[in-house]
């Protein structure tokens, strides 16, 4: 048999606990899923009888829809729990919420929360696999996987690619997971943004290069990823305003000239057109932003299938 890698029953808290081979297996599976998603009939019966709960303690309609679609395409059932109007508002803690759901027979949890570490907490209380759908500014591994899959699909591999990520690095969960994953897959990664939006020791933690000038950061890049600038941030005294920000860090055609001719432009969405990315770039032939969304469903299907659709390896004594 070609592979004996078994992901059954695994958690996905972040990409640190996944090997290169395992990530490649996820990509290979996602490729198949993507094809299924392009069929007229988009459903497969693989996970019939399984139940997935999406726990969104923080609202994120896009991510939740992507996950729920992935679950449904695989014929599993999905229940969604959002804090709006839920028992959490009545003071029920995470522990009780998870115990309650667990008692109803949930097979896997998809968790989004504003505090890092909550997916681990849900796993501790439920003893069921957990997919992290974003925990605070800590990590967002499925987004990173879909970003990396999108690059992998276009370029065949991440090895040796120069990838530049630009924007509010400090508050971005997407960046952290991507840095772990992209480094693991052999890419050279440069992060770029105002110094006040850069977390401390980022070079040391992730082994990446840190630049404050986008012209330098984007030079000869194969891929550039813009990050969403939370518009509220300009009131926190971290940078003077959007005008100056866009002129220095916005992705424009002029900036792209410094990169390779076949550069891919990415963005995890939702975009602030005219802030971190100009429409001329977002809608250009370089942009794979819309495809990232398509790939999101495929990658999440792949993960759900690999984690729920098998038999766990026997414990090695």
């Amino acid at each position: 048999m070609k592979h004996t890698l078994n992901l059954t029953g695994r958690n996905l808290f972040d990409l640190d606990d996944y090997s290169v081979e395992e990530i490649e297996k996820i990509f290979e599976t996602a490729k198949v899923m993507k094809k299924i998603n392009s069929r007229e009939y988009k459903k497969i019966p693989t996970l019939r009888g399984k139940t997935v709960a999406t726990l969104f303690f923080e609202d994120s309609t896009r991510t939740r829809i992507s996950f729920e679609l992935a679950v449904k395409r695989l014929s599993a059932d999905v229940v969604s729990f959002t804090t709006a109007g839920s028992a959490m508002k009545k003071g029920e803690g995470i522990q009780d919420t998870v115990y309650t759901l667990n008692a109803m027979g949930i097979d896997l949890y998809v968790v989004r929360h504003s505090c890092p570490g909550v997916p681990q907490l849900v796993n501790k209380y439920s003893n069921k696999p957990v997919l992290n759908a974003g925990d605070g500014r800590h990590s967002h591994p499925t987004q990173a996987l879909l970003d990396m899959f999108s690059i992998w699909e276009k370029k065949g591999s991440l090895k040796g690619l120069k990838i530049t990520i630009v924007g509010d690095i400090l508050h971005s969960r997407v960046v952290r997971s991507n840095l772990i994953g992209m480094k693991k897959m052999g890419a050279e990664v440069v992060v770029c943004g105002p110094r006040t939006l850069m977390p401390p020791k980022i070079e040391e933690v992730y082994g990446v290069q840190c630049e404050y000038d986008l012209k330098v950061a984007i030079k000869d890049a194969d891929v550039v990823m813009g990050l969403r600038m939370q518009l509220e941030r300009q009131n926190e005294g971290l940078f003077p305003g959007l005008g100056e920000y866009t002129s220095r860090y916005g992705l424009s055609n002029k900036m792209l000239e410094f990169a390779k001719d076949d550069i891919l432009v990415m963005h995890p969405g939702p975009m602030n057109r005219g802030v971190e990315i100009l429409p001329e770039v977002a809608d250009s032939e370089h942009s794979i932003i819309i495809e990232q969304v398509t790939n999101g469903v495929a990658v999440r299907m792949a993960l759900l299938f690999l984690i729920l659709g098998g038999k766990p390896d026997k414990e090695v004594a």
Partner: protein
Amino acid sequence: MILLKNGMVYLSEEKKIVKNDVLIDKKIIKKIAPAIEEKNAEVIDCAGMHIFPGFVDLHCHLRDPGYTYKEDIASGAESAAKGGYTSICCMPNTKPTIDNISTLNYIMRKARDVKGTKIFVIGAMSKGLEGKEIANIASLVKGGVVGLSDDGNCIQVAKLQLNVMRYASIYDIPMICHSEDYSLSGEGQVNYGYMSTKLGLPGIPTLAEEIMVSRDIMLADVTDSQVHIAHASTKRTVELIRQAKKDGIKITAEVTPHHLVLTEEACDGFDTNTKMKPPLRSEQDRVALFEGLMDGTIDVIATDHAPHSDYEKELEFMKAPFGVIGFESAFPVLYSTLVRNDKMKLEELVARMTSKPADIIKKEVGLLKEGAPADLNVFNLEEFFTFNESEILSKSKNSPFLGMKMWGKIHYTICDGKFTWKL
């Protein structure tokens, strides 16, 4: 009478450990000598064991009144006794806060009812620890507080801090400063640096502490008051204090066992028992704290025993309260990691947990000598054990040392000639 036979006895005045017998008569240590014979005494064989003065803790939170589900005076006293402590100083961030004489009296009365551990009270600097108005410091001092602190909080406005120090400088008590600039610590959860980046948690920069430490050093100088820096956690704090001492400023400082032994690495995994203020720092800071302790820049070891119930700690990391318990692990942890690894002499460790803190609050406690109050403890340093939740006497179990294997098991604690802990 109690006669402790054949123990290795730490003699406070000589700062030496010598094999001796110790005879206790009522509340007093009557005699320390080899081969004491006393027919009427209860004899305890301490062969192979060490006898230390009862430990003195300058910094703990007993949560009483107001938060007695976390701890109360009685449970705190018991937990302290199990850690070998016979004198502890409790912080004023109770509910109501200890900024008035009636709350102080409540604690003093309750502390008297607890037959055992001696409880000293630290009064508030500002009313309600709100950092807006000076607390009734003169009344508190008259009522018997041994120090002043807004611990847990920090007076942000320099002018108020200046006035508190100036107002209180006429009394011979320390101003115990929790140093934290809120505009810098903000929503911070862990050390600003490697771990805050790795875990995606807001960070608390070392600067938040250092800016306030340097401010308070200058204020101490100007007001000629006695400043005690609580739970020092950074390299630069140590340097600032070292320089201040050189400059002749009346400053003392403490460090906690967790800051001496652990680093921010412990936060990897989101264990809320590693969340405290100040946060666990980098290895560089930890080493500097230890060096500061060794060269006398840092005077004492204090636990910052801060109990929180399990349902508060079993929360999302960012929602869980700051603080860890410390009484019952303090000595074994430090003995195991510092003394047993030949980094520090046992005599030195004991001094930093007994006579040194007693000096800061100017109390005749923590002394093992003839004629002193019979406050002491008996450890078997060759006993190896695992620090388990089930054996913790504090109402709360929020320790970062759970599951750690350590040397030095306590067998007895005696306070004022009475057993407060027996294995």
